[in-house]
């Protein structure tokens, strides 16, 4: 009785190619489908010479006027480092109110100044 013929590699693998190809194509299609702007969260196509970022907010006319007054401080001999509000002008002061930084964080920063 002749020994059974060993199965060739081609005979067993060929049926597997079709499902593997299908899986590969599906993965490729899903991956490429994810290349959309809304999914990437950034601009993918640019128009030459056109700014496509977020629009900036213009300053108001009042602020612009205040800036015009404020520059006069730079003309004088003295420095413009004062707490602001000099001579009762309407321009905002240079000093901000204290931030809501916890005192512990400030102490930690102070520790860095010790050099130890």
């Amino acid at each position, binding site marked *: 009785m002749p020994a059974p013929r060993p199965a060739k590699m081609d005979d067993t693998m060929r049926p597997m190619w079709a499902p593997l190809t299908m899986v590969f194509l599906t993965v490729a299609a899903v991956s490429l489908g994810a290349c959309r702007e809304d999914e990437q969260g950034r601009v993918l196509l640019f128009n030459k010479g056109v700014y496509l970022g977020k629009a*900036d907010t213009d300053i108001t006319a009042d602020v612009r006027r205040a800036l015009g007054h404020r520059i006069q401080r730079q003309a004088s001999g003295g*420095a413009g480092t004062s707490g602001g509000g000099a001579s009762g002008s309407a321009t905002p002061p240079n000093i901000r109110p204290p931030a809501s930084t916890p005192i512990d964080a400030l102490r930690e920063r102070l520790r860095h100044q010790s050099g130890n």
Partner: protein
Amino acid sequence: MARMKFLCDAERCIECNACTVACKNEHEVPWGITRRRVVTINDGKPGERSISVACMHCSDAPCIAVCPVDCIYQTEDGVVLHSKDLCIGCGYCFYACPFGAPQYPQAGNYGSRGKMDKCTFCAGGPEEDNSDAEFKKYGRNRLAEGKLPLCAEMCSTNALLAGDGEKVSDIYRERVVARGFGSGAWGWGTAYQIKGGR
């Protein structure tokens, strides 16, 4: 409409570098990036002059012209700003800028660059005014608060002027008249061929 401009009076600048420090502190600029720096020539010799340099917010900005992703724009007040969301860190603006204003954080090995960073004239960026996102990406928006750039406002000798170009030139014109000689502006002697130029 105002055209915001910087002007550094080389006759007054004493190279204290306070503008550099103030800028870094105000905007919490990361290590390795200096938006403003003081340049000195003839250091320690006769004719020594210093000038504070940052983005000059050019009217016809070359950085805007060369940006391949058009991330740089100009506001109505002439301030040149950019969007870090669009920037790809290519470095073209650095090569185009005559003042060396654009800076890049190191983003990885082999000198790869991160998003460009530069002086914003204390006007933030395209994010919502005075929002956390704006502060983290671009620094403080003093213009929206009705304040001019801190580097100029705290300059102890008032060498650095910042604001509406017309008013800046008015202030500077008065100084030149009061001095009674040259302008003291950088390159004046070269431009107008004064002997031993100032």
